[in-house]
């Protein structure tokens, strides 16, 4: 698999970012057309990145809704709310930048002004807040505000050629971080320190944002070991503590990087120290691989999320984590294998160009658990693995 370097160069074509932006914008406009949207008001940072190429200051976690980008279908205009041109791609003219306000009433006036006559049309919003819901209704009484998130989800689901190249780089960066982690996996290092080891390694490559404050946690070997309730599911620790690792600990390692917004999600289960791995643990890894392969086989065009779920349905106790999720600009739908999402699993149909993280968890009382992940791309006749990291001591 070819992989591009991170620098810009003149002697070969690497990622064509103009094409990346153009393809994404076209997919966004197509989705607007299918959904009959005259405009989109986007507040989610990844939606603004997708439609407009806008890189905002990254703050972890979900923020309350505030308009960030506006897309007008007929005129193909993109407008952004930002005080300067930093992070704004050359495709957005300077007179389409608008000062952000702290007072939602002032922002609403600005939105109305940008929309002009379109403020009487069908306008998709990707999220909302009670304050903006009231202000929009009052200031733009002739607009029909509808769910625009559905259109954005649809646009983003199938990845363009350049997006897949970005995802591959993001994976390679996260894998580099993971190599630094497994080389530091010595008795005495704390779970929390490993978060820093991963972050340092990816930032040394120029990528400053981990997609998640990773999990570098000792896997519980007994259901009583952790005090939290798991609804009959396998026990798992996800939040790191100041816990020093001991030789022989089984450790779930997962984290990811954000390369130009494109997320990676790498996961491996490793044993701490140089001791030999017990046959029971090797068995557990074999069982994980068996389940994973069954899931991978289910990933082909026309199949649904329910097929992926069924491939892992024999795992007992079931995993508290989703069995699979989409990935692109951040964590994306589908989220397969949640109790509340059975209906959604069924509805989600695979198409070539979709990218999924498959992450079964196999746990046995007294032995521990294996939580590893692979990233796959749905192709014309099946799927192809994008991730590439060894399984380490457990695989023998």
């Amino acid at each position, binding site marked *: 698999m070819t992989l591009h370097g991170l620098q810009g160069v003149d002697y070969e074509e690497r990622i064509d970012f103009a094409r990346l932006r153009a393809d994404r914008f076209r997919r966004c406009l197509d989705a607007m057309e299918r959904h009959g949207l005259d405009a989109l008001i986007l507040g*989610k940072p990844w939606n603004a990145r997708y439609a407009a190429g806008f890189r905002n200051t990254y703050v972890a976690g979900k923020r309350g809704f505030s308009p960030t980008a506006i897309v007008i279908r007929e005129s193909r205009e993109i407008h952004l709310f930002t005080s300067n*041109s*930093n992070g704004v791609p050359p495709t957005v003219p300077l007179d389409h930048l*608008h000062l952000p306000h702290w007072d939602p009433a002032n922002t609403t006036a600005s939105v109305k002004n940008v929309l002009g006559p379109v403020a009487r049309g069908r306008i998709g919003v990707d999220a909302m807040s009670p304050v903006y*819901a009231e202000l929009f209704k009052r200031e733009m009484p002739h607009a029909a505000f509808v769910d625009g998130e559905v259109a954005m989800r649809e646009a983003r689901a199938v990845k363009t050629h350049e997006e897949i190249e970005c995802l591959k780089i993001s994976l390679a960066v996260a894998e580099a971080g993971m190599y630094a982690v497994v080389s530091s996996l010595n008795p005495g290092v704390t779970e929390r320190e490993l978060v820093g080891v991963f972050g340092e390694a990816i930032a040394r490559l120029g990528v400053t944002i981990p997609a*998640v404050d990773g999990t570098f946690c000792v896997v519980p070997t007994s259901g009583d070991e952790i005090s939290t309730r798991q609804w009959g599911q396998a026990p798992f620790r996800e*939040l790191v503590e100041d816990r020093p690792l001991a030789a022989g600990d089984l450790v779930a390692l997962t984290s990811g990087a*954000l390369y130009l917004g494109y997320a990676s999600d790498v996961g491996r289960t490793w044993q701490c120290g140089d001791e030999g791995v017990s046959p029971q643990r090797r068995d557990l890894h074999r069982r994980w691989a068996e389940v994973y392969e069954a899931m991978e086989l289910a990933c082909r065009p026309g199949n649904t999320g329910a097929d992926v779920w069924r491939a892992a349905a024999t795992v007992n106790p079931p995993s508290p984590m989703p069995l699979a999720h989409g990935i692109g600009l951040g964590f994306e739908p589908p989220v397969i294998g949640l109790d509340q999402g059975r209906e959604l699993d069924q509805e989600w149909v695979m198409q070539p160009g979709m990218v999924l993280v498959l992450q079964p968890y196999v746990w046995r009382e007294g032995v521990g658990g294996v939580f590893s992940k692979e990233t796959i791309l749905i192709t014309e006749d099946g799927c192809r693995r994008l991730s590439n990291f060894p399984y380490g001591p457990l695989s023998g």
Partner: protein
Amino acid sequence: MSEAPVQSKAASVRMLRDLAASIDPARMRRQRFLKTVEAMERHDVDVLLTLTAPNVNYVCGARIPLSESGREQYVPVVSVVVRDKDRPPHLFTPTPQGAPPDLPAEHVHPPLVPEFAQGVRQMVDSLRRLVGPALDGKVAVDDLTAAMYTMLPELLPEATIVNGVGVLQDARMVKTEDEVRCIRMAQVINEGAAYDVLEALRPGVRESDLTATYLRSIYELGATGNALDAIWQVTPQMLRDGPHTLNGELAFVTVPNDRIIRDGELIMMDTCVEYLGYGSDLGRTWLCAMRPHLSSQQRDQYQRWREVFERMREEVRPGRTALDLRRAALHIGGPKPWLSHHYIGHNIGLALAEPPFIGTDLGLDYEESMELKPGMVFVLEPCIWEDGVGVYRAEELLVVTENGNEQISDFPHGPWAGE
């Protein structure tokens, strides 16, 4: 004026042990829950539904790993509270490990998926089962997915949906003792890491290299998360060299990148770590140079910064308002000592910037209505900038006490302060 560098990374480490031991998370959770219900009473709200991690943490103490926003959107942590101090909140979470130990097992549920139409219907069914007829009353929500926004009026025809952000801002504004200690922890961790970064700062390193050092250091010191893509903004000497700005002022914040830092450049740094959800805020201006030299105009900028800050600090006491702080900042005359698209002050807590805000378009009436009370934690951040001369921006944290304030931040101002 000169400030001796009394601090160091080693001193930070020593402080952290005692500070961590002084925090009582169970007491903090109990007090925050009671304050939430009291705020619901003041706002006459029957049910409070929260879908954002800081508010869920406030209401019931649940924690999830910090991540990019997508993960939290599609598998959110959600809590629901009814207006009754004897009924514990319900929690829907993808991270059962982060559920507080004092929440009864039957109050912890698998995650909801309200980004999807089916998920909203399931959410309403679950809430109905758990809170009953209260769901037909006044329901405050802090966030709406697009699906909730379009579907809730139909699914809850009897309910009045109101702004839950305001209810929680009200509850969260005055911090408990434990909350202030968490902010202090975060700040000490952040400052400890900043000593490491200062040591790594020299011409020839990249902004991203500074982030590498920073990330390694904050987790060694015990951070529970990194809240912001750390900013090491190389400041343009002239406005015309920098990004285009809409108001003719200095561009700030610009996004971090892999640019190599060169001799003599000014770095506006801004970083935020998290401790149990609480943020720190460390902002300074650094000079990256083999032989650091400041012009007399740059030294004057620091003196002006110092004077604005001290004037403001004198006003940080119970009974004063946010407007008094704005006026104190303007007392010095001349250009406004902050960037007008930004602010000169804000509070900090579970969010990196919380109300009251000082110096924004929210206006003078808003600022006058924001009265200072003991337990509020302010970040004051004057920014003195002149095209062609340079900039001095720094942030200090102050907690309002019974008869004044106490400074939480304690990081040197480097060559500006004659160090």
